[in-house]
């Protein structure tokens, strides 16, 4: 796993450095090498569970729900879509992305809900009743 976390280097950048950075970024996008790297990173995700559900979290800055598709098929959760242009509005700045996650069996397909807020996608996948932990009463 590539860590996106870096210690704060307190590095100062000049505006020229910024420009160089963004030129490099555009270049890598143009060649289609890095996909969303730099823009949305490598589309990392978190997956959690509690007694009721699984929770998948993803970072999707600049993505609106109109540009997002979520499917669940054979226990594979797929999140795909495109980000809208950020600044210039040039069409080539639209970036397509997708990420698939294997989720454990026992998800109720009818019980999937999604919330997209401030660039964070939270998918809640409710467990089937029989998968929920149960306390057995001893009589």
């Amino acid at each position, binding site marked *: 796993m590539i860590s996106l976390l870096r210690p704060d280097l307190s590095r100062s950048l000049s*505006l020229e450095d910024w420009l160089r*950075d963004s030129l490099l970024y555009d270049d890598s996008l143009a060649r289609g090498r890095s996909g969303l790297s730099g*823009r*949305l990173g490598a589309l990392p995700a*978190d997956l959690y569970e509690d007694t009721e559900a699984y929770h998948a979290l993803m970072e999707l800055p600049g993505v609106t729900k109109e540009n997002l598709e979520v499917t669940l098929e054979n226990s594979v959760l797929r999140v795909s879509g495109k980000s809208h242009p950020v600044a210039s509005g040039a069409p080539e700045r639209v970036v397509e992305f997708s990420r698939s996650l294997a989720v454990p069996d026992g998800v109720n397909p009818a019980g999937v809900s999604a919330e997209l807020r*401030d*660039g964070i996608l939270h998918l809640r996948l409710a467990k089937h009743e029989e998968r929920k932990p149960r306390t057995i009463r001893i009589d």
Partner: protein
Amino acid sequence: MTTTSTSSTTTNLPTPPSAETQTRRFRRPPYEVEADAEGYKLNVFMPGVAKDGVTISLNGRNLEIEGKLHDRPNASWRPILTELHWHDYRLRLELNVRVNEAQIAAQVTDGILRLSLPKAEEAKPRRIEVL
């Protein structure tokens, strides 16, 4: 989706523990810059940060941007896969062009901070008439 709302609580993503209870760690957010004759447009990618979580300060040439996450994964959830890092953001940049501080504009939408930094008048390119 507009994201200028205040951080209303949701049941699944409780508010983070207070800053006192944990050492503050920061991520350096990705960003991009566009320049034209009038100034610079800076886009800082800070998913999980709403309008009221952003602090921008300009001290001389030093621009500092902090973004506070309004939610973190519930501590009671059992992690299965963890690739994300739930730290607040901090970006420090040194400006080498004077900007018009009074005209700096900022907007936060869908986890992106869009900052407009107009150049100070004396820093703008000037057309020299050849007589």
